[in-house]
């Protein structure tokens, strides 16, 4: 039960994140949703680590968190630059290139 719940939460977190990316237009919120997706994966890793007794999983989670942090750093920089040029963080504003 506990095990299933853990995985389920992981999956649900991931799904919420993915869904959020799809429906939100604000770049920052979208990025937060992506973080959610990564955390969904983290929860699964943690679950595996805990229930199967594999320490490796926790290491992986740490790395993923580091990655998320790095992404956040660069992402915020980009979003800031975008904000400066376009005066907003709504992704619909990024429409110069298409087709």
């Amino acid at each position, binding site marked *: 039960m506990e095990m299933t719940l853990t995985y389920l939460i992981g999956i649900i977190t991931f799904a919420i994140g993915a869904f959020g990316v799809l429906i939100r237009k604000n770049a920052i919120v979208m990025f937060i949703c992506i973080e959610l997706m990564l955390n969904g994966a983290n929860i699964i890793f943690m679950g595996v680590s805990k229930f199967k007794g594999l320490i490796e999983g926790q290491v992986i989670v740490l790395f993923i968190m580091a990655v998320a942090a*790095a*992404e956040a750093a660069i992402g915020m920089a980009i*979003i800031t630059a975008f904000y400066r*040029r376009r005066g907003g963080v709504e992704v619909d504003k990024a429409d110069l290139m298409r087709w």
Partner: protein
Amino acid sequence: MELMVTTKDIMLILPEIVVFLTAVVVLIADAWGRSRESYLNILSALGLIIAAYFNYKLFGDHGRAFSYLILRDKLAFFANYLFIFCAFVTCLYARDYLIRENRNYGEFYGLVMFAALSMMFIASSSHLLVFFLSLELMSVCLYALAGFVRDRDLCVEAAIKYFLIGAFAAGFSAVGMALIYFKANSLDLVDIVAVKPDLVFVLGLTLFVVAVLFKLSAAPFHVWAPDVYQGSPAPVTGFMMTASKAAIFIFVVRLFYEAFGVNKQLWISLIMLASVLSMVLGNFAAIRQMDVKRLLAYSSIAHAGYALVAVAAATKVAAASVVYYAVAYCLMNLGAFAVISAMAGEGEEATSLERLQGIAVEHPALAAALSVFLFSLAGIPGTVGFMGKFYVFAAGLRAGLYWLVLFALINSAIAAYYYLKVVYYMFMRDPVSLPKVQVGVATGFVVVLLVILVIQNGIIPGCLYKMIYTAIG
């Protein structure tokens, strides 16, 4: 799993260390005194040459470093050459471009080298976590590079698109890894091979493959590519289009032949689908493009499709052909973007075909060089592009993928059209308001070098082939 770092481990990643140190030195040197016309590119190039030297020294050393996290074999060393070369070329010619854009900053070279470093690790990873981390390191560097000219709208737009979609895909790969881990209890490729596939595993594998395809800009996960490649500064586009894809392809070779080779049926149909879609979407969408960079972006999607033909063939010959194709692809696209970044005027408004038209009148050599790269991309014999295609198709036929190869052949005929279109604009129309073109020494050198390599490998492909074949082992 025990983590024990020995001297041997360090020795085995010496080239990577050199690249890393060079990047750091460049960043420090830049911080020391920033000047508009600094020669940091030379510094970077020297560092890369040293790295290549160590790579040469180590070539042939075989083994796993850092407790099975990193696999050093001939393929890895060969790949290192490729990435070092790509970074070397990019660093050299980018300076002219960056000076024109008033952005000759050390970060650029640093980021390029960090990206190269991550690619080297991608090519040597035998552990999904290492792959994931390297991939993310590479992506982060490339996000930054894509938006490098941050006061240009297109650049910023490219960066944000790349970043959001890239991070989104990273989420998939993370969860894919998690599912694989759930099933295999390990992310080491050696362990994954042993797994009996079930639904969860297949799902995880598929998600992971999706992430890989995403980075290859293979359809249907190619959507980001045209925008990002078009918007990014030309040298960056050149670099990320070539080196990053080559890195992934080499990992794919590893992944599919070593890890998942045993249960081919799991992924071959997926690869074939991606291959067909990439060729169709890439080639057809490119037909109507009027911007060289965007056109080449679509063409790169199609090229991913061609290479996937060989991936789907899944034989040793095919593995070699994939690597060969990746090398060929790097050479010609780097060349094309070197020329384009020389041609593209200030503010980079000039990559549209109309602006390039008639450029052959003023700059016949430059136009001729670009034509060589374009013909190579089109797969005209005498160029490395043809040999690559030939090899890939041969591998495909060998594996009995008749219809796929036929499809690819027809596609490559269709593709010739849009490459010709560029040649047509350059050679066969009268010039109208040409962008100011300055070809610096470094750019000139790079272009000549690449032209020679493209033609030489197109006429005498033997030595490169042999290197790759032995690298595949």
